[in-house]
């Protein structure tokens, strides 16, 4: 297993176990795609069922959503830079960009929580209508993924700081990178099919 080391590959791909972990994570992302696709279809079925409650136009705050989008897209870019630093074997650069990524993610999360609080003040809760149930759960699932990602990445940053760049820490970082980009892609779909479409309706 771990005996099978190929040093010609990037650090995160060098051991057989790492290659299997990365493939396994890709397959997991496949499952995540199905999961979000299901949530999108649920939203697609229920998005006009206001049940007399607030509609898209009543509650959406496009300016804040734009800022959220910029924060998350930027964080995806900084995550890319972090991985690039890892490839250059620059531990300090990796940790720096990694932390910046998480700060951007936290900023996104802070704004999303504010958005939720605003909705609830407007009387738009998860219990109000089928539209709002599906909206909250779709956004909430994405938000929960971001939250989980921040905590997970923090663990890995501690490990990089303690152990340096090893095949194991490099693989862990690379996998979080995949996860983070995936969340960004999901957000683009949310932005398009929930917010933009909701405002055009």
């Amino acid at each position, binding site marked *: 297993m771990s005996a099978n080391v190929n040093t010609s590959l990037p650090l995160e791909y060098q051991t057989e176990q790492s290659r299997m972990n990365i493939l396994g994570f890709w397959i997991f992302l496949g499952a995540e795609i199905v999961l979000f696709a299901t949530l999108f279809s649920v939203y697609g079925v229920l998005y006009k069922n206001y*049940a*007399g*409650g607030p509609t898209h136009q009543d509650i959406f705050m496009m300016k804040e959503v734009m800022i959220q989008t910029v924060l998350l897209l930027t964080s995806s870019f900084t995550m890319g830079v972090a991985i690039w630093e890892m490839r250059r074997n620059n531990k300090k650069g990796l940790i720096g960009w990694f932390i910046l990524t998480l700060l951007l993610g936290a900023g996104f999360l802070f704004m999303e929580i504010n958005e939720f609080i605003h909705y609830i003040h407007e*009387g738009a809760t998860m*219990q*109000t*209508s089928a539209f709002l149930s599906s909206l909250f759960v779709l956004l909430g699932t994405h938000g929960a993924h971001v939250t989980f990602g921040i905590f997970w990445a923090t663990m890995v940053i501690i490990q990089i700081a303690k152990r340096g760049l090893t095949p194991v820490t490099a693989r862990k970082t690379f996998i979080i990178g995949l996860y983070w980009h995936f969340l960004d892609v999901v957000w683009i779909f949310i932005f398009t099919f929930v917010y933009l479409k909701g405002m055009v309706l």
Partner: protein
Amino acid sequence: MKLKMLVLSLVTAVPLLFLSGCEMVVFQPQGPVARSIMELINWSLMWMLLVVVVVFGLFGYIVWKYREKPENMGYEPPEEHGSTVLEIVWTAIPILIVIALTIPTVTTLYDLEDVPAGYEEKEPVVIHVTSADWKWIFSYPEEGIETINYVNIPEDTPVLFKLTSAGTMQSFWVPALGGQKYSMNKMETELYLVADNPGSYMGRNTNFNGRGYAQMEFEVLSQTDEEYDAWVKEVKETAPKLTEEKYMELLKPTHLGRLTYSNTHLAWINHADHDSELVTDPEDYRYHGYQGKIFDQEDKKSNEKDTTDVENNEEDHGGDHSGH
């Protein structure tokens, strides 16, 4: 060989059982709708029987011929990877059978959506069916009468059943007259049925909906035109009026016998309307075990945030175990 005997007895038993099947309700259609479905079933049975005979025959032959016996212990089977020709054959034949089944299936599916052929000229009788826990409510809007757990129809006349539900989902089935369809709250599904002759047919719910499900049956009584008209007239003259309070009482999860009224509940609520109110009360469904929190039904459009908390529910749970 025991196995062979089992197979043989199966092969002979199945057609025998099918013959006895002539008495089964699905094979004794009492109207054109059920008859068209039965014809489709018979057509499929024929093909399926052919498949069964071929596969069972081949299976019996191969297992019998190539079984291990003391005298063939030295036989070493040949190496064989497959045969493209054979594999194409047993892909193509099932495809042909599927096509043979598909065509009548699709035409029957389309036919069942409409008034049965031959009855287009006759004005259909429209009956609204509302299923509730655990009773069937039939409303005749034209005639202005409402019956519970039985429905009278004129013979040889297409009847359009418009199905909906006051709460849980049910499936409306009169096997002697035709296939079934779901009844759902805030939805309307339609089903045409015709009875050839006067007679009494069993109808029931086939979709599980809680404790009273097993008894959720009704009678369809097909009558001659004169009898039917006389019945309508009699009901209009003698049956009591249904009030809104009485109706809400009826919707509670209970079993009722037969009831008849000389007006319909459609005057104040049609559960098929998309914005109709859900009038059932979760408290009526409390039963044994640990009781969870019940949420406000937003249907009632109460805008104030009133959260039914756990303490409140405790007062009235575990009460009415109606229905038995």
